[in-house]
């Protein structure tokens, strides 16, 4: 890590960071990762709460499905997504007809990132919800408070730190996604793809600026969210 920052003179890096490809990829990455994180959180939180508070075979199966993207190789994820959302799939065709292509577009990037980032939200938030003693929820409801009031005043505040950690991890995973994005949306280029392109076309030295910027953005997100 430290070697990353020491390997090239600082002014050199700063100069190259102004290059339009770098700025474009940074914009794409920030935008797509933010959307992916929001989407993953919106769908992931209720799911995580349900998983944390329910037992049974169905819960277990759902959990396995949710965790799958965590262990699936990124290129396989890409293939799966292409098969379902690709231009030759019914869904993909419909989307193209509607002028909203799901591959080689920001939508494609978001799709890939959401797919790989969601499990982090679900798994971490589930653990956070489970760490909240259910007795506290019963206590709140026995005081005459509805499920919703209980969730808002008791469960969420107590699970907050854990959920935030999950959201942060999801953002970090989304902004770093490479394999599935490569296959689903080579354009618009995200930063990890840009690193690869710069490395292949111009050599290691030219990949440094984007890499440094990516690490900085990711770390900033980690710091801001925690």
């Amino acid at each position, binding site marked *: 890590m430290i070697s990353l920052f020491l390997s090239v003179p600082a002014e050199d890096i700063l100069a190259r960071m102004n290059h339009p490809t770098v700025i474009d990829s940074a914009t794409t990455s920030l935008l797509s990762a933010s959307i992916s994180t929001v989407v993953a959180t919106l769908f992931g939180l209720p799911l995580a709460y349900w998983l944390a508070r329910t037992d049974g075979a169905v819960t277990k199966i759902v959990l396995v499905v949710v965790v799958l993207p965590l262990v699936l190789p990124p290129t396989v994820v890409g293939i799966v997504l292409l098969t379902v959302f690709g231009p030759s799939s019914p869904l993909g065709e419909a989307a193209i007809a509607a002028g909203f292509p799901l591959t080689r577009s920001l939508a494609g990037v978001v799709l890939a990132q959401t797919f790989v980032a969601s499990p982090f939200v679900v798994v971490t938030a589930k653990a956070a919800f489970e760490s909240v003693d259910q*007795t506290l929820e*019963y206590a709140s*409801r*026995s005081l005459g408070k*509805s499920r919703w009031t209980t969730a808002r005043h008791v469960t969420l*505040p*107590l699970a907050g730190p854990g959920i935030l950690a999950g959201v942060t991890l999801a953002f970090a995973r989304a902004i770093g996604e490479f394999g599935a994005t490569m296959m689903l949306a080579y354009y618009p280029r995200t930063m990890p793809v840009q690193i690869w392109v710069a490395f292949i076309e111009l050599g290691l030295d030219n990949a440094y600026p984007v890499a440094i910027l990516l690490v900085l953005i990711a770390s900033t997100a980690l710091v801001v969210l925690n």
Partner: protein
Amino acid sequence: MTLELSRLRKAYGQFDFGPVDLTVEDDVLAVLGPSGSGKTTLLPLIAGITSPDSGSIQLDGRELVGLPLEDRHVGMVFQEGALFPHMTARKNIEYAATASERVDELATLLELEDVLDRKPPTLSGGERQRVALARTLATDPDVLLLDEPLSSLDAPIRKRLRDELHSLFESLESPILYVTHDQRTATSLGDRIALVRDGDLEQVGSPSTVLTRPTSRFVARFTGNENLFEGTVTDRTEDGATVLLGDIQFETTASDIHTSTVTVCIHPSRVEIEAPYVADGDRTANTVTETVARWLNEGSEYRIDIEIEAGSITLTANVRPPTFERLALENGSEVQVLIPKESIHLIPERE
């Protein structure tokens, strides 16, 4: 208010709770039982945390089964308090209170003024339980359920809070159920005691009935009665029955005994010890002279084991320290054992 449970049943895997029938009016029912007896199943059923498999729970005729927790108006004080750790004591009570004056009123009643602005993790065990109680009372519940609120406290604080609860319960006009595994707490707080065994109510009655007239060996043992012997009824008159314990005949005031084999049950606190050959005065009691086999200092009383019938029966007596010292008891001391007729309780053999 009347809380009425009818044919209430709940199965957990191998374990079956119920069917239980129980009515609690504006008095305190102490639910006493060993761990694993199912006594802890009862309160969640009434509060609505778990649902019964069948049966009904009615509060003044209103059916509670099927209602969600929040619509039952049943207040529950949880074992460790279940205070919201991110809120101060005041916020915890305010969260539940219908009117804000109520918070200060309860804080005064339960002597919480000084700790209102502290968060639960910084409170002592006794303070936590007081806040939990205040929080529950703030909702003016129709029924009050308490789940071993004293069990994790140190002895002096437990005693003090128990006395406070005693006064508080007298001022409340609603059914109160108090679950505990401690016989002393049940006896001192309960207007009635319900003994739970293997998911069933084994005996329900006033503390003195449960203690002195247990209906089974289980109840006797769980309420601290160690003197349980197999005996044979030899004679029955209108005034009572005569029972043979080994070779010794004891007279009792027991009636309604229809089996000849019985369990003879003598509470250790009702066995009296005197120096040999001291006259008994005007009381009539069964008297034997035997030797002390063992003694144990139990703090506020001594426990004396006396061997009767050449050791085949060991009778335990609780003796106050002054008596112990006055008689200068030690192992092998000869003592006169006096057991009043009415202190011998007979449990008929179950068919």
